[in-house]
């Protein structure tokens, strides 16, 4: 690919690709961020995401509606998360073990749900088209030419940021994640808050999976999430549990992915494996530097993260 004619449209094309590659990470990462802010560590993101992909594709194919497919994907993620919530929040089971089991369960269930749909193709989710605006050269497609998933992901980032730092419910969620003993002593419903957060995270992960099978690559293939759930988990940690940083990290990751694909195609002479590792290295490096910059005396992570809570009553 020749790089000597860098026109605005090529830049736009690259940016559009970056945004679409980042969208599933944003959706799943923001969901997990809310879960972890409430003090629960759900390692089952990959499982909920892949089940969302299978269920989303199945529902969309059966009903012929991408919208219902997206709802189906989110619902499947939510149901799987509900199981996790019953175990870890209700029965105080170990969160790490339950989360890992959830991933394995989700991979298995998705194979079952998607068995009849392997090899089928659908049209990708429709893209926004505003006459005039979308056709603007250079920025039209970047701003006004995406599918609903992309806009939903961006709204989710802003919405969760606003929820966590501008609403009372968000304050309670953060308090529960910081010290469940203290918040319980104040009479706040620790387990209810955590269960709802787990459900929200599951729905987000399911929606992220549905985006993959309905919009990003509109078909179903087993294990098609290809580790994106794990990357979303890592993003949350390296983003210091800040929604805007999760979005930035996801975009960086998407950007590095697109960049290394182009670099491999251009034949730079570097080993392909090294280039494939580039997005991971770049994202980790950037977010580590970001979190180093503002170290204070308090704890960056939700202090109760991963600790089970069983009230005495």
């Amino acid at each position, binding site marked *: 690919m020749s790089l000597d004619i860098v026109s605005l449209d090529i830049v736009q094309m690259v940016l559009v690709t970056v945004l679409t590659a980042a969208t599933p990470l944003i959706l799943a990462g923001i969901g997990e961020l809310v879960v972890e802010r409430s003090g629960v560590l759900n390692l089952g993101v990959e499982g909920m995401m892949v089940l969302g992909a299978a269920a989303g594709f199945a529902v969309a194919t059966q009903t012929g509606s991408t919208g219902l497919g997206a709802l189906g994907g989110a619902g499947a993620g939510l149901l799987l998360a509900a199981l996790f919530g019953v175990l870890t929040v209700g029965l105080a089971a170990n969160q790490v073990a339950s989360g890992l089991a959830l991933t394995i369960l989700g991979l298995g269930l998705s194979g079952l749900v998607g068995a009849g749909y392997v090899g089928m193709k659908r049209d990708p989710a429709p893209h926004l088209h505003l006459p005039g605006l979308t056709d603007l050269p250079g920025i039209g497609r970047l701003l006004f030419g995406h599918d609903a998933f992309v806009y939903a992901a961006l709204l989710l980032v802003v919405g969760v940021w606003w929820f966590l730092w501008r609403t009372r419910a968000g304050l309670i969620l953060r308090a529960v994640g*910081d010290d469940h003993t203290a918040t319980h*002593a104040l009479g706040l419903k620790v387990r209810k808050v955590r269960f709802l957060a787990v459900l929200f995270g599951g729905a987000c992960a399911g929606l992220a999976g549905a985006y993959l099978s309905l919009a990003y690559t509109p078909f179903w293939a087993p294990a098609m999430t290809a580790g994106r759930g794990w990357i979303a988990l890592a993003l949350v940690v390296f983003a210091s549990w800040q929604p805007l940083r999760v979005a930035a990290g996801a975009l960086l990751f998407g950007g590095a992915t697109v960049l290394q694909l182009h670099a491999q195609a251009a034949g730079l002479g570097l080993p392909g494996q090294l280039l494939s590792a580039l997005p991971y290295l770049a994202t980790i490096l950037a977010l580590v530097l970001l979190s180093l910059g503002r170290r204070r*005396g308090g704890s960056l992570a939700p202090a109760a993260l991963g600790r089970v809570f069983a009230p005495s009553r």
Partner: protein
Amino acid sequence: MAAASAAPAPRGGPTPLFGAYGIVKRFGAFTANDGVDLEIRAGEIHALLGENGAGKSTLMKILYGLLEPTEGVVTHQGDIVRLANPEAARALGIGMVFQHFSLCENLTVAENIALVMPAALTGRALAERIARLGADYGLHLDPARPVWSLSAGERQRIEIVRCLLQNPKLVILDEPTSVLTPGEAEALFAVLERLRDEGRALLYISHRLDEVRRLCTRATILRGGRVVGTCDPRAESARSLAAMMVGTGVSEVRPKSVGGSRGERLVLDRLTLPAPGLHGTPLRDIALRVAGGEILGIAGIAGNGQAELFDALSGESRAPAAGAVRFDGRAAGHLGINARRRLGAAFVPEERNGHAAVPPMNLSENALLSRHATAPLTRFGLLRLGAARALARRVVDAFDVRGAGPDPAAGTLSGGNLQKFVVGREILAEPGILVINQPTWGVDAAAAARIRQAVLDLAGRGSAVVVISQDLDELFEIADSIAVLHAGALSRPVPTGATSRAALGLLMGGVGEPETQTGEPPAAPAIRTAAPVL
């Protein structure tokens, strides 16, 4: 929580503001409260007295809606009410100041307060209310500060302000002075007396009998989950109150037998250490000498370098020069904890849970953790669990540590019992040097007496003991001489008999030694280094 049928007849007198009648609370086979009656009237400070494990906390939690009683009723102005949760209790005007503050460390002061406020009250309006109330009662707080950066006294102020913002009719205070300095405690008493004069009721839980006698007009005494008496604490002596709490007469500690003085055993020589972290206190030019058979008390307000001094003595932080810390004449400043233990020293840190003991581990495992350096508890790097269990058993027997089962997890013990275990574990090693930080913090009278006696007996056998404590009564009871730590600098030790509470209080506040004093003031200036300008 709606009012229901008529309440049981109050026992004489006007209808109490709040009453609890026939309260029974069982946890499995264990009965924490067994038929407890309590009446609280408006405009009184009512004391709830009892040892650790007497059922005070359970009763408080029932009144605040955190626990529901197995049997019995709670009444409000004569009507039976159901306190299903703390929200219901708050709606009735019950507020609580927790002993172990229920604050989220990583949230700000205002956020912690907003957690229990009506949803409409947020942001600037809330900050204004906090400031107004603070100015009114002298409880100043910066709403934007995160809680982790605040001292214990400031944290308690948050709890009190949070409680008062709800305009409570009844304020429950659980051991409110246990983490406060004498000055902070005086300020708290002034607030409490004002609340009483405003017609509010206060339920005051404390181990400190002189406080109870000063503040309270009625006391209910619990022992083993039952009410064993009510009285007017002003008409009782601290001794008679303690006897009611414990059931038998509390023995005053016996003075230690004189003897076994073996010259200087512990020496700190011009020890200077930088602050360990952003919120730590640097140690400035600290010098002290403790002889065998001597107990040196170190008084001071929390956060003036106690933790840093303890760390420097125990080896958690090393001295810049090896000779700055000397045990029995040997330089130990560069040594770690275990090496210092092998020189015959032992250490009891302030925090029981997580520093002195690992809560989820058994007592025998906890015995191993500090004693493996000095006792034959391992062989070829393998644990000798039988020997560890035997050692734990010896500590349990010698110090009357009560817990469930033969080798319970440390975290399941009550505070007093765990503290007896931790102190006993170190004292049974017969250390030549013992450093102990806040030996009886939050411990009931009987356990505290036992611990103090053990420390005195150890010194009587010729050991040098350093006791860091915020409890001046304790220091006057057991220490031979007392020095004051202020802003990381240590005053010259003064014999206990030659100083007074007032003189120490001035030093603790950073004010120099007053020239005129009863007794025999030391000739030299009391403070080696001037109080630093912060």
